[in-house]
Every structure is written in structure tokens, then in C-alpha cells.
């Protein structure tokens, strides 16, 4: 299945885009998606970044569906 991945700030700069379509087997977990991204862009994104699925923080074991929007969250720096 094709999962839409949002990138922000330093991660978007490093990958040169603010979104990716990543093909992963169904079902996949967040950690599987991160491994696929690491293959495509090693060193641009750390192995275990903060991740949100559909605008909520998610853990690495969360199972993904094809319609999920996954965001890779660089260290936040608001305020």
C-alpha cells in the first residue's frame, strides 16, 4: 500500500521535499515505514524520530492503513 508521509523543517530540507509517497506491504507498522524511509534517505531522518499518525503522536508499533497520513516530527522548538 501507498502511505503519504509529511516532512517538516530540517527533515523536509534534508530530503528536499515536504511529502513522500512510500510503498509498504499491508499491514505495516510505523517502524516498517520508518525502515523504508531509512532505505531511501539514510542519515536525513534519524532511525526513531517522533511520528504522528493522523495528527496524533503514535508509537512505533501502531499499525498503518492506506489512508493514514504519517508525519515525521523533527525535535519541536515552539515558544
Amino acid at each position, binding site marked *: 500500500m501507498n502511505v503519504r508521509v509529511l516532512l517538516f523543517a530540517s527533515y523536509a530540507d534534508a530530503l528536499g521535499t515536504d511529502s513522500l509517497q512510500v510503498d509498504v506491504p499491508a499491514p505495516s507498522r510505523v517502524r516498517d515505514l520508518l525502515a523504508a524511509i531509512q532505505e531511501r534517505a539514510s542519515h536525513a531522518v534519524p532511525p526513531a524520530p517522533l511520528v504522528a499518525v493522523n495528527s496524533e503522536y503514535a508509537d512505533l508499533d501502531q499499525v498503518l492503513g492506506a489512508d493514514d497520513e504519517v508525519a515525521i*516530527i523533527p525535535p519541536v522548538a515552539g515558544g
Partner: protein
Amino acid sequence: MRTALIHEPIDAAALLQEVSSHGSGATTLFLGTVREVNDGRDVSGIDYTSYEAMAVRELAKIATEAVEKFGTPHVVVEHRLGALGLGDVSVAIAISHARRGPALDASRYVIEQLKQRVPIWKREHYTDGTREWVDPTRHGVAAPSGGAA
């Protein structure tokens, strides 16, 4: 309770007005502002960007937690996005409560949670023409982190 991401200057006096209540004995306002030096480098401005759909929800969750934890509905938080100059206000947290203790505690709770959880990023511009994304996790706990607050 109200939270917002805004792209215009923050009106702190309006926030104070918004949380004022005859039931309140204490009002606190916290402002984060862009400061001219960070980690020894001369800052000329900061661009704030965000994953807005998520940041809006996370900000509202934090304010709701503060309302429940400290027992006052008078919690208003605004975070500004976009290009800010020196001295500009990036975040404002206005809270009023019957008593000062919870008003002070709630103010601290909201800014600490915001800094940990809300997906907002800042790119500092330096007077030497360079710019860099701020990464608070690169520093030790004891070191000042972040260009504002």
C-alpha cells in the same frame, strides 16, 4: 478556554482582557519573545513553521489539561507563525484564577508542555547571513535552549 495559531502580531493586552473575570484574584501572562543572542550567535530573526493541523489539536489538548488540572476555564494561548523580528512575541499564555498558586502553576504547565509537544519549528537567522533550524535536543539539560523563552 481558547487556543490559536496566528500569523499576525499577538495582542497581549487583548488576551489579558479575555481572561479577566470578577471571580479571579490572580492573572498571569507569559510571553515568549525573540532574543538577540542564542548559543552565543547573534540572531536577527526567526521563522516559525508548524504542522498546523496537528499543532492546533495539541495546543487545545494542553489547554484542556490545564483547565482540568488547575480548575479554571480562563486559559488563552496564542502562538504566532511566520517571520518574526527581535523582540517580537512568539507565544502568549494568559490565565486567570481565583488564587495565585494555581494561576502561576498553570502558566508554567502550559509553556513546558507546549515546548515538548506542539509541532512547531524555528529557523534562526543570524547577523552573519546564515540560518539554522533550532534543535533543543542537541543541548544538555542545563544549557539554555531555543531562541525564544
